[in-house]
C-alpha cells in the first residue's frame, strides 16, 4: 500500500484529528477537477506503479540473468557500487536456496531495494512552533517548485498557516517566480531586493512568520553547485542565521535531486549534507522516463532518506515517497 501523507507529516494533532481529510466539496466544483485528478493518478501510476520487467528472471539462473539485472539497475542510475551490492546479495541468497522461480526472486529483489531505500527517519515533524523548512539543491533541480507545492499542501490539505522566505536573491527573477507560487498556494511571502543578503531575507521571514504566528516557514535558496565552496559556505551561513532565531531550526533541510541526475547525485548529496545537514531528499521530475536510482545510492551510502517525490509541474504534483513503489518502478520498463 502506498505511503500516505499522514505517514509523512508528524502533525501532533492527536489521533482523531490527525491530518484531517480536506473537505473535498468546494474543490469538486472547480472545473476540470476530476480530469486533473484522473490525469494525476495516471501520472503517479506511470511514475511509480509500472509493471516490473517480465523478462528479468526468465529461464535458468545463469550469468546472463545477473547481467540482465545489473543492466536494469544501472540503466535506472542506481550506480555500479550499489548495483553490485544488491545483485551480489540476491545471488548469494539464490545460491543458498529458498528462492525458487522468477516470482520469488522478483519479490525478494524489490524487498532488498526497498530496504535499502528505507533509511533513517523519513518523516517530517511539523510540531515545532513554527517549523522551519529549508530548501537546498543544485541549479534547476526543482527547489522553488517543490517549495510552492509543499506550501500549497500544508495550507490546503493540512490547514497550516505558512510563510515563505525568498532567500534566492541571486538568480534573475527568482523572487518573481516564487511570488508566483506564493500566490497560487495562497500564502504570504517575504522578499528582499535582488543581490541582497540571502541570510537577511531568511531572518526576516522567520521574524515575520513568528510575529504572525505561522505554523510553518519555508525558505527557498538559490541553486548552487556543490563544488562552489563560497556558495556552499553562504548556505551554511543562512543556516546559522536561522539557528540564531530558533536554536533547533531549520527543523528540516530538504535537498532536491533531479531524477534524471546520474552518479554525480551522490556527490551532491554528500557535499550538501556536509555543509548544511540534509534531513531528506525530494526526488523531482519522476514524471519523465528517468528512474531516480541515484536516490537509492544516496540512501544506501549516506543514510539520507527520500521524503517526497515530484511528479509534475502543477501544485498537486507532489507525493510522499514510498519505498516499495519506488523499488518496483526501478525495475519497470
Amino acid at each position, binding site marked *: 500500500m502506498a505511503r500516505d501523507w499522514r505517514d509523512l507529516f508528524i502533525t501532533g494533532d492527536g489521533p482523531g484529528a490527525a491530518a484531517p481529510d480536506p473537505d473535498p466539496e468546494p474543490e469538486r466544483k472547480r472545473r476540470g477537477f476530476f480530469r486533473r485528478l484522473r490525469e494525476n493518478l495516471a501520472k503517479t501510476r506511470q511514475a511509480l506503479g509500472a509493471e516490473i520487467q517480465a523478462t528479468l528472471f526468465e529461464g535458468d539462473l545463469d550469468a546472463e540473468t545477473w547481467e540482465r539485472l545489473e*543492466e536494469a539497475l*544501472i*540503466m*535506472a*542510475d542506481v*550506480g*555500479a557500487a550499489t548495483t553490485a551490492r544488491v545483485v551480489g546479495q540476491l545471488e548469494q541468497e539464490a545460491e543458498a536456496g529458498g528462492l525458487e522461480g522468477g516470482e520469488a526472486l522478483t519479490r525478494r529483489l524489490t524487498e532488498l531495494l526497498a530496504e535499502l531505500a528505507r533509511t533513517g527517519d523519513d518523516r517530517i515533524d511539523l510540531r515545532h512552533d513554527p517549523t522551519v523548512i529549508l530548501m537546498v539543491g*543544485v*541549479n*534547476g*533541480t*526543482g527547489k522553488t517548485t517543490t517549495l510552492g507545492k509543499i506550501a500549497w499542501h500544508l495550507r490546503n490539505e493540512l490547514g497550516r498557516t505558512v510563510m515563505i522566505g525568498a532567500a534566492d536573491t*541571486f*538568480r*534573475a*527573477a*527568482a523572487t*518573481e*517566480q*516564487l*511570488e*508566483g*507560487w506564493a500566490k*497560487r498556494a495562497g500564502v504570504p511571502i517575504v522578499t528582499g531586493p535582488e543581490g541582497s543578503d540571502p541570510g537577511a531575507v531568511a531572518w526576516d521571514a522567520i521574524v515575520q512568520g513568528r510575529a504572525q504566528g505561522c505554523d510553518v516557514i519555508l525558505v527557498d535558496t538559490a541553486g548552487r*553547485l*556543490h*563544488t*562552489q565552496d563560497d556558495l556552499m559556505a553562504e548556505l551554511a551561513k543562512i543556516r546559522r542565521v536561522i539557528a540564531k532565531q530558533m536554536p533547533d531550526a531549520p527543523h528540516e533541510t530538504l535537498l532536491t535531486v*533531479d531524477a*534524471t*541526475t*546520474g*552518479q*554525480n*547525485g551522490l*556527490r*551532491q548529496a554528500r557535499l550538501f549534507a556536509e555543509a548544511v545537514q540534509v534531513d531528506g531528499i525530494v526526488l523531482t*521530475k519522476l*514524471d*519523465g*522516463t*528517468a*528512474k531516480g*536510482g*541515484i536516490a537509492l545510492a544516496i540512501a544506501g551510502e549516506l543514510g539520507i532518506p527520500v521524503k517526497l517525490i515530484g511528479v509534475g*509541474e502543477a501544485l498537486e504534483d507532489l507525493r510522499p515517497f514510498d519505498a516499495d513503489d519506488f523499488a518496483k518502478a526501478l525495475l519497470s520498463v
Partner: protein
Amino acid sequence: MFDALSEKLQATLSDVRQRGTLTEDDVNTAMREIRLALLEADVNFKVVKSFTARVKERALGADVLGQLNPGQQVVKIVHDELADLMGGAAAGIAFSPRPPTVILMAGLQGSGKTTATAKLARHLREQHGSSVAVAACDVYRPAAVDQLVKVGAQAGADVYEQGTDRDPVDIAGWALDRAKQEGKDVLIVDTAGRLHVDADLMDELVRIRKVVRPHAVLLVVDAMTGQDAVNVAEQFAEAVQFDGVVMTKLDGDARGGAALSVKAVTGKPILYASTGEKLDQFERFHPDRMAQRILGMGDVMSLIEKAQSQFDEKEAKDLERRLRKGEFTFEDFLSQLRMMRRMGPLQSLLGMIPGFAGSQLRNLKVDERELDRVQAIILSMTPEERRRPELINGSRRLRIAKGSGTSVQQVNQLIKQFGQMRKLMQQVGRGRMPDIGALMRQAGR
C-alpha cells in the same frame, strides 16, 4: 575516482611489459575497469557496451610499444576511440545568408535553457558582432519571461516578449516578424522546459519549429544527466531534429558521460559548453577535453602524446635499458631535461599528471631558474664527467662551479641529488610511470 582509471589500468597491466603484447586476459581485465569508469561517468549502459567491444578489438594483440607502459597503451586506445566518438572540433552555428539566423532552444526542465539563451546571445554578439534578439516563449514557468528579460538585457540582446497570455507558437511567429523588421542578425527562441514524453508540449515545440523555421535547433543538456540522456536525446531528435547540443553546468564535477551518450545515439555534435552562472562562462565545446574528463585522467593523454612525439623511439628503448641497469648518466639527464623543457613550462606539465593536483605535491613550485642553473652545471662538465659522475672530485667541482657561475655547494648538491634520482629513475624501467613529482623536487631544488 579521479585518475583512478589510468592508475588501475597501469597496475593491472604492469606485468605485461615483459611479454610485449596484450593477451585476451589482459584486455578483459582492462575492459572491466574501463566499463566501470564509463558507467561511473554516466555513459549510457548500451553505449558503454558497444564502446568496450570496439576498444577490445583494437587492444587485442596490440604491441606494447616504446615509451608507453601497457596501462598507458590501453588508456591511449580508449582515449583515441573516445575522442573519435566525440568527434573532432565541431563547426559552430552556420549563419544564414539571409538574416535573421534563427536558433531554437529546447530541452528538459531545469537544464539551463534560459541562461544558455542569454549566454549564446552574448557569445554571438562578441564573437561575430551580431545584433541579437531573444524571444521569450516560456509562458508556463512562473517568471520565466522576467528572467529572460533580465538576462537578455545583460547579454546586450533585445528581448521580444508578450507576457504569458499568448500561445507560445504565436509569440514565436511574432518575434520572427519583428526580428526581420528590425534587421536583426540573429533571433534566439527560448522555450519552456518540457519532458520528452509530454506529447502536448512536444507537439507545441514542433509547431514552434514550423513557424520559425530555425537554421539551428539546439538541445540543452545538463552535464549531470544520467542514463536517461539517451531517451531524452532520441525523443527530441525525432520531434525537432536538433542540430547540436549545449552542455550546461560543466563547471561542476560531473564527468559528463551524457555528452558521449547523446553524441553516440544521435550523431549530433556538442557545440557549446556552459561553465558557470556568469554570462561569459560559455565557450565552444572541445571534444578532446571531454574525452579526458569522462575518463577522469586529468590531461594525462596530452602528457603521453607530448612525450611520445618528443621521444625518438629507439632512443627511448635505449634509455630504458640503461635506466633499468642504473646506468643513467648526466648526459641522459641533460637530454631528458631538455626534452621536458621543450614540452613546455614544467609547472604546467606537473598539472597534467593525474593525482598531482590533489596530492600534497601541488604546492611544489618549479623554479625555472633553478633548472637553468642545473643545466649550466651539467654543461660545464666534460663529456667524460657526465658519463661517469664518480670522477668528479674536489678540484673538478671547483672548475665546474666557476664554469657555470655557481658555487661548489650547488655543484655538490646536484651531484648528491643526482645519485638519489638515479635510484628513483630505476622505477621507470620497472614499467611504472616515473614519479615526476619526486624527480622535480630533486632536480628543481
